[in-house]
Every structure is written in structure tokens, then in C-alpha cells.
């Protein structure tokens, strides 16, 4: 009996807390990736050491497939690890996390394949790899170089496991909905209806005009909160902008020029927040 999805989560939590990581909890807003949550975004900006691990449900509205595609979903689970400064043996620690899941790497092909990550929305980029296990991308492994438009020093390393992918590997299953969430419940039981309804909402029902208003409201709110030096609430508003933007994108309601403009609008506020949070050369 292979481990269920919840076993996988617990196993990774045990492993990384064993490596000195604080176990944080998922952030309670829609985000596109674990990188965007405050436990990563703010904590990488200053010079203080930071070790954290947490599961983060991540929404990608355009990836919705009405529950009909065995691999693509509009909401998936990431397991996010951030360690600052990046330890010199971090690749070994990562490899051992796979071994701790019971994967016998002598029998498999594990590769670190060049893949440099960037998020123009939050002014962040890094250098690293996608980790491939027998051809399946299971992890994004990144040394952050910049976030919020600032050079990061010391350099944090981010390890993001795609939990469903990894679980499909562990269970050798072809269909995400067949995964065992626990001994008693499948992924289908928990998530199928959600995928179906949200796909319809994302692609067909989300009100484009209202979303545009929502974007403008959140952006405005973010700017005024920045002026009041309420940086975490201001950042929340940026996350809302980002999700609304993704919904509009799924509705195919953004032209290429608008896309560039909207991303630049969010990035302008985010980089402002970052600068105020971690003034150059100071320990925040």
C-alpha cells in the first residue's frame, strides 16, 4: 500500500520540520503559487535567517478542465520550503526528502533540468531547475536572486513540490481523481465537484466588468494602504489584483497590451511595498 496524499503531506512536514523548518499554515487568500504568500514574499526580503515549510493550495484558473482532464486542475497543492541562506548541501537534503518518501532512487532517473523561474507580477526571479523524476516534473528548485525588485542577500532557496504530481508518481496512477487522499477518500471525493464548478465559473461565468472594477478597487486600496505604511494589508490587495487578473485571463478578456499594463501596475505597488519593508542595507 503506497502512501496517500495526506501521508505524503505529513511525511514532507515531518522531514522539513526535522531540518529546522517552522511549519506554517496555508495562506487564506487565492494565490497562483506558494511563492506569493507573505511567509515567502516578506521573509526573503531581509537579512535574517528563515526556514519555513507549508502546504499552499494554488489557483491557476486557466488550467481548469471541468474535471475531465486527468492531469490539469485549476487548483492544486504545493508544498513550499524556503531556507535562507541557502545551505551548501541543499540538493542532498532535497534528495533525502524523496528517499524519506520511500522512493528508491537507484531504480529511477532523477534529473535537475535547467529552468529559471520568474514572476513579473511580484518582480521576482531566480535560477534553478525543474526536478524530473522518470520524466515527470515533481519539483521546482530555485535560488531566489530578486524579489519585489530587490536583490536578495543572503540568497534564499525555494523548493516547491507539486503534491498531486508526486502523489501520482507514488501511486503510479494516470488520473489525478483516482488518487487516494486518505485511506477512505479519493481526490475525486474532495475535489471533483469543485473543479467542475470553478472551471465553469472561471471560463464562462465570471463577470468581466465587475472583475475589472474589482481590480481597480484592490489596486487603489493597495496604494492607499502603502501610504499608511500598512504593508501586509497592502500586499493582500496586490494578491487580490493578481487573482482577479488571472480570472480575466481565463475569460480571455485581456489583450496582450492590457496584460503588460496590468502586470506592471501590480508590480509597481509590490516593489514599493518591498522597498518600504526592507530599506536597502538595513535589517528589517
Amino acid at each position, binding site marked *: 500500500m503506497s502512501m496517500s496524499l495526506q501521508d505524503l503531506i505529513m511525511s514532507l512536514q515531518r522531514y522539513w520540520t526535522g531540518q529546522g523548518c517552522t511549519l506554517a499554515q496555508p495562506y487564506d487568500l487565492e494565490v497562483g503559487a506558494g511563492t506569493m504568500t507573505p511567509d515567502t514574499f516578506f521573509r526573503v526580503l531581509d537579512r535574517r535567517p528563515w526556514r519555513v515549510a507549508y502546504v499552499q493550495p494554488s489557483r491557476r484558473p486557466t488550467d481548469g478542465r471541468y474535471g475531465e*482532464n*486527468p*492531469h490539469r486542475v485549476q487548483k492544486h497543492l504545493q508544498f513550499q520550503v524556503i531556507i535562507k*541562506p*541557502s*545551505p*551548501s548541501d541543499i*540538493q*542532498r537534503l532535497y*534528495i533525502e526528502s524523496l528517499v524519506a518518501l520511500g522512493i528508491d*532512487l*537507484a*531504480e*529511477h*532517473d*532523477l*534529473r*535537475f*533540468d*535547467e529552468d*529559471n523561474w520568474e514572476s513579473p507580477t511580484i518582480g521576482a526571479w*531566480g*535560477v534553478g*531547475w525543474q526536478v*524530473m*523524476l*522518470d*520524466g*515527470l*516534473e515533481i519539483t521546482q528548485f530555485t*535560488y531566489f*536572486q530578486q524579489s519585489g525588485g530587490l536583490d536578495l*542577500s*543572503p*540568497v534564499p*532557496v525555494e523548493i516547491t513540490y507539486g503534491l498531486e504530481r508526486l502523489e*501520482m*508518481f507514488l501511486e*503510479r496512477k*494516470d488520473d489525478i481523481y483516482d488518487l487516494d487522499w486518505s485511506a477512505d477518500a479519493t481526490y475525486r471525493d474532495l475535489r471533483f465537484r469543485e473543479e467542475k464548478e470553478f472551471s465553469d465559473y472561471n471560463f464562462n461565468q465570471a463577470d468581466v466588468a465587475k472583475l475589472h472594477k474589482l481590480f481597480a478597487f484592490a489596486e487603489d486600496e493597495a496604494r492607499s494602504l502603502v501610504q499608511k505604511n500598512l504593508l501586509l494589508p497592502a500586499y493582500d490587495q496586490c494578491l487580490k489584483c493578481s487573482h482577479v487578473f488571472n480570472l480575466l485571463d481565463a475569460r480571455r478578456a485581456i*489583450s*496582450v*497590451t492590457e496584460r503588460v499594463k496590468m502586470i506592471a501596475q501590480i508590480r509597481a505597488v509590490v516593489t514599493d511595498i518591498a522597498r518600504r519593508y526592507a530599506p536597502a542595507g538595513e535589517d528589517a
Partner: protein
Amino acid sequence: MEFLLEILAEEMPPDHVRAGLDQLDEGLRRELAAARIPVAALRTCGTCRRLVVLADMAEAQETQDKLVIGPSKAVAFAPDGSPTAAALGFARSQGVGVEALETVMTEKGEYVGRRKTERGKTAGEILSGILPGLIAGLSFPKTMRWGGLAFRFSRPIQGFLCLLGGAVVPFEAAGLRSGDTTTGHKIHDPRPFAVRSFEDYRAGLAERGVVIDPEARRSAILAQVESRLQPLGAKLHPDPNLLDKLVSDIESPCVVLGSFAKDYLTLPLELLSTAMREGQHLFSVVKDKKQLPYFVGVADARGDAASLIVKGNERVLRARLEDARFFWEQDLRTPLSKRAPALKQVVFQEKLGSYEDKTQRIKKVTAYLCDKIGAVQAKETAVQAAELCKLDLVTELVREFPSLQGRAGGLFARAEGFPAAVAQAVYEHYRPVGLEDESPAGPAGAVLSLADKVDTIVGVLGVGVQTTGSSDPFGLRRNALGVCKVVLDRKLSFSFPRLLDKVLAVYGDRLSRPVREVKADCLDFFAGRLRHIFERMGFRYDLVNAALGPGLEDLYFALLRVKALDKLKASPQFEPMILMAKRVNNIIRNQPAAKVNPDLLAEKAERDLHSSVTILEGNLRPMIGRGDFGQAQTVLFRIQPTLAAFFDKVLVMAEEKKLRQNRVGLLQTIARLLLEVADYSQVVVEGEKGSG
């Protein structure tokens, strides 16, 4: 003495490995030469985790005779030959007795000096000094920092193994000390082990699952592929870039053969092989150019006894092929012709409009070009292809597999039943994507390729987007090289400046910069690309400059000119003619333009020259017109004796102004004629080397 350096790092991309090894090779040779350490042999090898240098070098610096000059002899010794205080002081400063001083003859007269043989530093000392700077100075396409270091490299460095004659060369870089150990395969045998020599290193790695020599890995991969595919009578769908990547990325090559359901064979080969290559780095397997339901993968593993690797890849591939089929079938439901409105939404460049605008422009330019190059039969095909060529940008398939753009359009056009020539032209209009790539095979594809690329270059330069060393967001260099390659491959002869005029006119007021400037910039830009191509073809740089001198009226003629120069450079007339041409240019430099009045030709030599030039001009025109620069030059060279006689007998700078202007005018005519064949002033000949 054997030198071995290994920089062990986390996985570096293939182009980084190549860049690192090239610079280590070049830098180490340079630094060791500067430090007077003779190097008998030096080579590099490596993997994505290891940059390795192996060399055979001298144990120490060559000894050097050194002469220290002291006071002049007159000061150092009294007339009776006894040493003065100056001589004694100098000898003391050199740590020797005065009897060890000798007399040295210098430019300023006789001096005393002290000759000594300096023993050199050892190679180890030198290397300890050189290596930290050399390693820190390596540059990569993209660098990064890690941990708390300010050090930059391709990827984090994990260690340095550095031995000279079996002993550690101590140095420190990136916060690490060099040593005599390395580690084996990252997964299969990561424990450190000690090394004493390269042979020890190579064999130690081999035992631990790592093949250090890239050529050995390449042959291992190809041999395993061969043995897997032979029973099927099949071959790899060739993909040299993918093979290079795998040779670099994989320390322990293990080839696996997997299969997929036959249903997917209804998809085009391009789509299948793209789905396999991207993401999983798998090769398509073909027989008689037809895809078989198999793939070949190269794993970084010792084996796949339990078939877990192949099964895992099959599962992932099935999902990718399912996606590809979904997109392909979905996209086919919307005919290309219905996609034009969507193309309006896709911005080509903010100021240059959408891809729909681009389509309308390249349609016009395509029609123009077909007329100009006499490809009238291809015109209808090419214009229809122009209409269709960008529509695949709004398909889901190209969104998912951007590398298929163009080719996907061709495949859709074919599947929709457009004429084969139209589909082919769409399919190949992005080609060539580099100088290594082939030009479009059909005339319509070639014209479309030219129109598309020239439109991009003119437009982007026209709105003032800067292309600098590393920043070329619209790939202008690649596009211009593509244009030159198509023109040269197909031997297309047409007025290039007029093509630019046409494209500029089609853009109308979209361009923010003055038309004249844009055109001049385009011509400069293309001259640079042609220079690059010609030098890469092996032509001498000065001949290339000479061939480009007459300008870019006709791109293909520039090639004919450099070829003619290259052919004639060995002839005995070449050098005298070049010198004569330079003499003509020197005399008329800074002279105002003048006209020749035959009535004013006073002397026989100048009348002879004038009549030769008149005849020559008549003969040359048709040769230049058809691009026969070899013959044109041969004919032109015949004027040399007449010209020589003219210089001999006639004083160009005559006192009388009218005579002088007339003679200058005659030479200006000759200079103009010469410049239609080549700018001979650019050619470097023996007779003038070293004279500046």
C-alpha cells in the same frame, strides 16, 4: 607534470558548461604563458556537474637571466681601476662583492652591472595565484549568487579538486578550499573519494557511475540507441540539439525504449516529436521517415532492470500526447480563415500594431518581391501563404508548444486542404532560424520568409528599439542573418534599398523615426550581418570590407564581389592594381568633383587614358549588371599599364587650374568605376604592410 582541475558544481546548463570550459582552456593557457610556465598539452572535458582541465606543464617557471644596471663605469671606478663608494654601494645592494660586477655596454655608454640567474617560482605557486581569479572571472550566459556569498557563478560550486603532479594545489575561491577529493554520481555513489592523477580520477569516476569524457558518453548513447532500435529496423528522428544537451546533462547514460498507443500516430510527426522533446527530452523513433509508436529516452541511471524508468516516462508521455491531440483536434474545428479577427488581438509590437497588421504588410511586400525576383508563378501561392502564416499564433496548440509556430500553421493549412505549396510556404516561413538551419525549400516560402523578417527589422528599428550587445528582444540579428542566408542560398538578385523603401512605404506613418535614418540604419545593420557571414565563410576581412565598399544595392552581388576578389588575389596583377587604385584615391582625396572636357586633354598619355576609360566603361556596365565581377575585374586590371603611363608622363597637379581639374576629373571617373567593383582602398597588400 600532470595538472588536474575539477570544478564540481550543481547542474549547469549545456551552454554554460561549454562557455566555462572554453574560457578555462583559453584563460589558463594565457595566464601560464604570461607566467612563463611552458605547457606541453592542455585539454578540457566535463559534465553538467564538472568542469575539468587536464594539462601537462613544466614544474617551474623557466629560469630567467636578469641584468641589474648600476652606476656608470666612470663613476664606479677611479681612473686607477679601484672601486669608488658608488661601486661598493651597488655591490652591497646586490648582495655580492665588487668583483662580481661586470661592465655593460648601454645606449648611454659603459655602466657596471650585475648579471644573475633568477630561479623561477614553481608551477604550483603560480597556479595557486592564478586560479582564484581565473575561476571568479569565468562568465556565463546568466550568473547567480547563493548562500551568503557575493561570488557569482553558473550554479553553486560544491568543491575544487586541484592536483599538480599528484599534490594538491592549494587555493581558495567561492568560500571553498581546493583538495584532492571529488564525489561520484550524485544519486548512485555520492561519497567523496581521493584522487592522485587524471587516470585515477577517470577510473574512480567510472567505477562510481560517471563517464567523464563527453565523446565517450556520446558514443555510449549512440551505441545503446543502435542496439535498441536495430531489432525494429528503425532510426532516431534526428535532433542534434537534443543529443548535445543529453551528452552534457547525463553523467551515466542509460538508453531506454518506450512505446505509446498507436492511436496517436494520426498526429503529425512534428507534433509528436515536439511533445516528446519538450519536457521529457525524448527522441521520436522513425522508420522510412514515418513515426513509429516508440520513443527513446536517455536516463541518468545505471540501468532500468525493473522498467520503472520506461514505465514512468510512458505515463507522462501519454498525458502529453493526450493534451497534444486535444489541442490539435480542437484547433482543427476552427478553420484558419476564421481566426483573422483573433489575430487583431495579438500585439506584434506596441507601436507596430497587431499580427493582423503585420499580415497585411507582409502580403504587400511578398507580392512586391515576387515581381522583383521574377517569381511570378509563385506569387499567388506566396500571397495566400502570407495571409495564413501568422494565424497559428492564436491556436491552442501553439500556445502550448510555442516552438511549433509556423510549422503548426503549415500543418493546419495542409489538414484543411489548402494547396500543398501554400501549406509548405507557411510551414517553412520562419526558416532559417540560424545560419546552421536550412532556407525554405520552395520559392514561395523563401519570399515569405524574406518579407516577414525584413518587416520585423525595419519596423523595430523604425520605432527606435535599441539592439545592443546582449539585448536583442526581437531577434533582429537572427532575422537579418536569415534574410542574407535566403538571398545567398537562392542567389536572389534585386535592389535591396528599394525593398527597404517599399517596406518603409507600407509602414507609412507608424514609424516614429525619419525614414532616411531608418533606411541608413538598416543598411548598416545588414552590412554587419553580411560581414559576419563572409568572414565565417573564410574570406579575408580586408577583402570582405572591399566587397562591401560599393554598398548593398544588391545583397547577392556583395557575395559575388568578395568571391571575385578572393579568386583574383593570387594573380600577379592584383597587387600592382591595388596599389594603383590606392594611388588614384590618394590623389583625388579632398578634391572637388570635376568634369572631364576632352578638348582640354593636352598630352598623349592622358588622351590614351581617357579613351581607355571610355571603352572600359562601356564594356564594364553589362558585366557589373549581370554580377560578373570576376570578368569585370580582369577587364578593369587591363587599364593598369595605361594608368601607369599616365602617372609617369602627366603631372596631375598642374599649375594651370583648368588642366588640373580636368585630370582630377579623369581620375575621379576611374575611381567611380573601380568602386562599382570593389573598394580597393580596403585591401591590404604586402607592399604597404608595416608602413602604417
